[in-house]
């Protein structure tokens, strides 16, 4: 397959691409054996994913649980070393870097986690959690500078500097997530992967954190990969949205275009599941209910991975993996029937 040719490319050559992912594959080996472990199969968590993120934009990545969203994000940050493909960050190929080179690069890309309870070390103070990246990358020269910097970071995310001496268990969920955000912006990164960053919070807190993330984006010209399963949150924060299903990106489009004009049958089904906060409209809402379950990534279906559940499936769908095609300007879908 000549995959590189069908990769989505930015409209104009001059656009500034920060993260460029091409043909990313992450297969987790399934091992068996008592003394000698043998590989018996692969779990294809991410299978041939290609997209790019422009500097300063937010790319939303949606899909149901287990579709490979988080794995994709972690592969970009090289928290998992991908099986194959390329991840280029600001012109530098992360896949070919050794551990030492990567550690220096980590200053420029950060992560915010889903669970504000398990993402903070319970035995460190909030100040030390926030300040750890500063120490790791030797960005402060003195104790005083460290304290000032930590205080400044805490203020930036809406916490009080005197809270630096407190431990995670003394904070509420929303405050903990702010600590997580402060840690992520400590090194002034260019790119932050928000891995379900608001999914574990209740709705009013979600709004606060989303607003905080947007303020920080304006302030520091951040680029986000925003992974979520809450479609209304993604719609609110993203510039463009990519939809994943079973390790594949099935559709990428600008936010408004995707919500107004979903092309891929999976995207249509996914969007039809969003409830509408108006009882009359909600009652008339047409839902596309998919049949069956998501197939196992251990043995994904041949051809288009969605063909087993697709309402518009035809015989050709079982043949080959449909390429991501530009169906409308800047609107890419991986379906032979659109």
């Amino acid at each position, binding site marked *: 397959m000549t995959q590189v040719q069908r990769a989505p490319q930015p409209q104009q050559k001059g656009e500034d691409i920060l993260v460029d992912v091409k043909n990313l594959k992450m297969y987790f080996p399934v091992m068996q054996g008592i003394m000698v472990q043998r590989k018996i199969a692969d779990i294809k968590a991410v299978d041939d994913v290609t997209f790019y993120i422009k500097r300063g934009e937010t790319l939303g990545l949606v899909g149901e649980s287990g579709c490979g969203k988080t794995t994709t994000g972690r592969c970009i940050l090289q*928290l998992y070393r991908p099986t194959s493909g390329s991840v280029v960050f600001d012109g530098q190929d992360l896949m070919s870097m050794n551990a030492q080179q990567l550690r220096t690069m980590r200053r420029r890309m950060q*992560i915010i986690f889903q669970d504000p309870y398990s993402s903070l070390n319970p035995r460190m*103070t909030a100040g030390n959690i926030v300040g750890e990246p500063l120490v790791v990358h030797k960005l402060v020269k003195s104790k005083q500078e460290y304290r000032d910097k930590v205080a400044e970071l805490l203020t930036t995310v809406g916490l009080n500097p005197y809270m630096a001496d407190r431990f995670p268990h003394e904070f509420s969920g929303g405050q903990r997530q702010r600590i*997580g955000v402060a840690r992520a912006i400590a090194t002034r990164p260019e790119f932050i992967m928000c891995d379900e960053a608001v999914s574990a919070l209740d709705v009013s807190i979600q709004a606060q954190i989303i607003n905080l993330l947007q303020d920080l984006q304006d302030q520091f010209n951040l680029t986000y990969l925003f992974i979520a399963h809450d479609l209304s949150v993604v719609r609110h924060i993203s510039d463009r949205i990519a939809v994943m299903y079973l390790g594949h990106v099935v559709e990428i489009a600008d936010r408004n275009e995707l919500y107004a004009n979903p092309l891929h049958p999976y995207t249509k089904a996914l969007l039809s599941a969003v409830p509408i906060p108006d009882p009359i409209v909600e009652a008339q809402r047409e839902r596309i209910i998919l049949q069956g379950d998501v197939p196992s990534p251990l043995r994904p279906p041949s051809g288009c991975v969605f063909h087993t559940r697709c309402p518009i499936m035809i015989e050709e769908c079982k043949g080959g993996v449909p390429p991501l095609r530009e169906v409308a300007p800047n609107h890419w879908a991986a379906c032979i029937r659109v």
Partner: protein
Amino acid sequence: MATTPAEQSLGVKPAQNRGLWAIAARRLLRRPKAVIAIALLAILYASGIFANVIAPYDYNHQDVTQVRQAPSTQHLLGTDYIGRDIFSRLVFSMRTSLILTVVSVITGTLLIGLILGLLAGYYGRWVDTLISRVGEVFMAFPHIFLMIIIAATIRPRVLDMIRNFEDSTGITGLVRWGIVDYLVVFGALAAFSWVGMARLVRGQILYLKETQFVDAARASGASVWRIMVVHLLPNALPPIIVAVSLGFGSVAAAEATLSFLGIGIQPPIPSLGRMIGEGQNLTILRNQPWIILPPVIVLMVIIFAWNLLGDALNDVLNPRTR
């Protein structure tokens, strides 16, 4: 959020006392069984440390005219079969027990066990396989049996080594002070105590290295060393502390066992096991109980106190029993 003045007026404790460790320490000291255990251990081990001051006689001072005397003002706990003061020997036995348990727990259990467990848990793959399998081989044999073999076979070698060392350096008295016994017993104890600790640490690390805060540290670019020391170890510590506390009791018992069997501490250096061994026969138990009962009771109290403390620590540190 801005509750500083209110907090201050309510007399909230200063920040440095609110960490998980400080909370655990305060909880621990509120438990009677912990206080009792700490007090017992403090008394026993302090008497060992200050044995020179406390003991009225030298541990090897013999008075053949005063054999098997009942407790009196002159000999608080009486005398043994060659007229040595039992109280003095008991106090010096505490020193032996203290030195051996502390050294073998720190080096064997903590140092070897902790490092091997950390490596096995963090690196996994063949490192884990190697360490785990070797540990299982050690666990497969009865401990006492292997300890006897080790103690019996390494003694001559250690003795030679120390003699050579004395000859070549001109330092004297190492053999006489019982350094050989210490090394032999320590070797036999350390060879086994690491396995349980390594397994415990490995399990903790396996769980902790998948946590998000470790991912966060890795994503921040933290080095392996930093992840281990700052993120993994402090969080793995609670069960380790409990295991060490329980381990002290079992190591003290194992040391006494070896000495009781005559392959641990050699006479005339006093040890609890040795003292029990010297008094072990029915006639003595019936007619001169002061010879055998004191070391037995002290050994029991040591083991009991360490277990009590371990139990209290577990109550305080284990989130599931809290």
